[in-house]
């Protein structure tokens, strides 16, 4: 009955996760060997004197979608911003701990945070296309500004990325139009295409649909399922239904701590912690 196919929930059994603290005792190398794409170890973060993340440990399987849920201010956004070293660019923010991408700690000495961001893409809460660039240039920006000159390659990647973001058919005739001239939902898919153009291995999404209407949100949710064939997706969401619909694994965070982490089905149907159960059932949040 165990299905080892990539990307399916059954790749790790619920039993394995029921006692997930065992997993956290895995070394990062062991986690990598077992097919985990991202391993977070003892991750802490502060803003000034306030601790935003408290000793976070978890592993993310390759080609899956993992969602972070929790009430406002619980640290879920801070957490995913730590995964591509974006958090440390905020004034006053400090990070301690390790995040392994494959078998490399991205916080190790000598690792350039700029190159790390080329492997880990990010999509933000509000659509933020570059305002003075055309649709084409928005998607090509990452390539061009990283020194790629091959026009043919750029053209190919732009089309591929726009197709990947399910936007190609809507914009193919008007790639020269400003990126800011299309609708909000299209802009967010443009931002996804822009991230995809860098061929990332991991895609971080910080509440990507919270500024969008339900139809535009549904389109993006649909898209995520296609994208996970090629990438590992970690998504922050305010919307529990969305987490239940799109993700393979769910992490529940509260006050900077990871309360519970496991297969989405288990978190929503049979949570192990009382706090999780109360949040899921809407008793607080």
């Amino acid at each position, binding site marked *: 009955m165990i299905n080892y196919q990539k990307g399916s929930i059954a790749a790790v059994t619920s039993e394995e996760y029921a006692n997930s603290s065992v997993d956290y005792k895995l070394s990062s190398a062991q986690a990598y060997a077992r097919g985990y794409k991202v391993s977070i170890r003892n991750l802490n973060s502060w803003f000034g004197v306030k601790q935003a993340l408290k000793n976070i440990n978890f592993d993310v399987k390759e080609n899956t979608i993992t969602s972070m849920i929790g009430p406002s201010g619980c640290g879920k956004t801070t957490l995913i911003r730590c995964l*591509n070293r*974006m958090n440390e*660019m905020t*004034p006053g923010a400090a990070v301690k701990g390790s995040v392994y991408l494959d078998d490399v700690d991205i916080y190790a000495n000598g690792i350039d945070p*700029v*190159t*790390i*961001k*080329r*492997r880990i*893409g*990010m999509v*933000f809460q*509000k659509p*933020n*296309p*570059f*305002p*003075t*660039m055309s649709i084409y240039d928005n998607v090509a*920006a*990452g390539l061009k*500004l*990283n020194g790629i000159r091959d026009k043919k390659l750029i053209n190919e990647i732009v089309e591929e990325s726009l197709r990947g973001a399910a936007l190609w058919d809507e914009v193919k005739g008007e790639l020269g139009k*400003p*990126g*800011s*001239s299309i609708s909000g939902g299209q802009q967010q898919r443009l*931002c996804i295409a*822009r*991230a995809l153009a*860098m061929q990332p291995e991991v895609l971080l999404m910080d509440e990507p649909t919270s500024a969008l209407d339900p139809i535009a949100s549904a389109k993006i949710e649909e898209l995520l399922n296609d994208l996970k064939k090629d990438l590992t997706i970690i998504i922050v969401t305010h919307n529990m239904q969305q987490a239940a619909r799109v993700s393979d694994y769910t992490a529940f965070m509260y006050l900077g701590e990871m309360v519970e982490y496991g297969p989405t089905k288990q978190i929503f149907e049979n949570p192990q912690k009382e706090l999780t159960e109360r949040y899921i059932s809407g008793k607080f949040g």
Partner: protein
Amino acid sequence: MGDISSIQEKRRSVIQDAIVRQNKKRRLMDRVFTGVTIACIALAMIPLGSILIEVVKNGASAISVEFLTRPQGSIVSGGGGIGPAIQGTLLVVGYASLIGVPVGVLAGIYLSEYAGNNRFAYIVRFFNNVMTGMPSIVIGIVGYILIVLAVGSFNITAGALALSIIMIPIVVGVTEETLKLVPHSIREAGHSLGIPKWRVTLFITLRSAKNGVLTGIVLALSRISGETAPLIMTILGTSLFFQFTFEGFTDPVDALPLRIFRLAALPYEHAESFGWGAALVLILIVLSLSMALRFLVLDRRYKASGGARL
């Protein structure tokens, strides 16, 4: 219950009366306020309009091909034109912006993108504000001491330096302010693509703020085009064209404001007419400069409809 509703009734009528009284007052105040703003607009337009009318009326007749291209003829009998002054203004202002634009824009970038709120930036901002209000004659003296005395003659570099010192604080201020208007999320989007910070700054942040920065540059160019005092101390003025030779860089240069100043001091009728003509040419240069760049900016804004309008 009856009491409560009658009290409520009473209150309503009191409030109603007050609103009616207020309404009359409000309408009157509305009219007065609109009238005052219109009167102020008119007051502000009178000098501008009368200057333009006067300059066009007196200057238009002086303008001819000879006037625009020839050096000045005899002081007493007239003839010739203000060619060297037009050439000199374009050269000095161009030279000044070669220094002022890169320095100003890069310093503005530093203050907005790199400095944060450190002490050094605070001091730079403070002195930049002081420099914005520095009397231009003082800046002329600096140019005189630094360059004219060193070279041994009035020269174009001294003039360009003085004008660029006037230009830089304006460009720095506008660049910093417009860059700060670019949403932080735009920079983050750039960083998230693994683009190095200097490229994010130049090709994403600055590009997003381009309209505002260009407007600031035009503002600064218009300001320095009309400066006279610092030019007296640095390029002096001459009735000869600038020569593109090594010697040319050690000779005095002419400029329109200087020419107007000199012509106005002459007691001859043709000099007076030349002066008006030169003033008209200067106004037209400044106007076309700012209109050309404005149209470029406005055109972009129109095309990027729905985009961030900076």
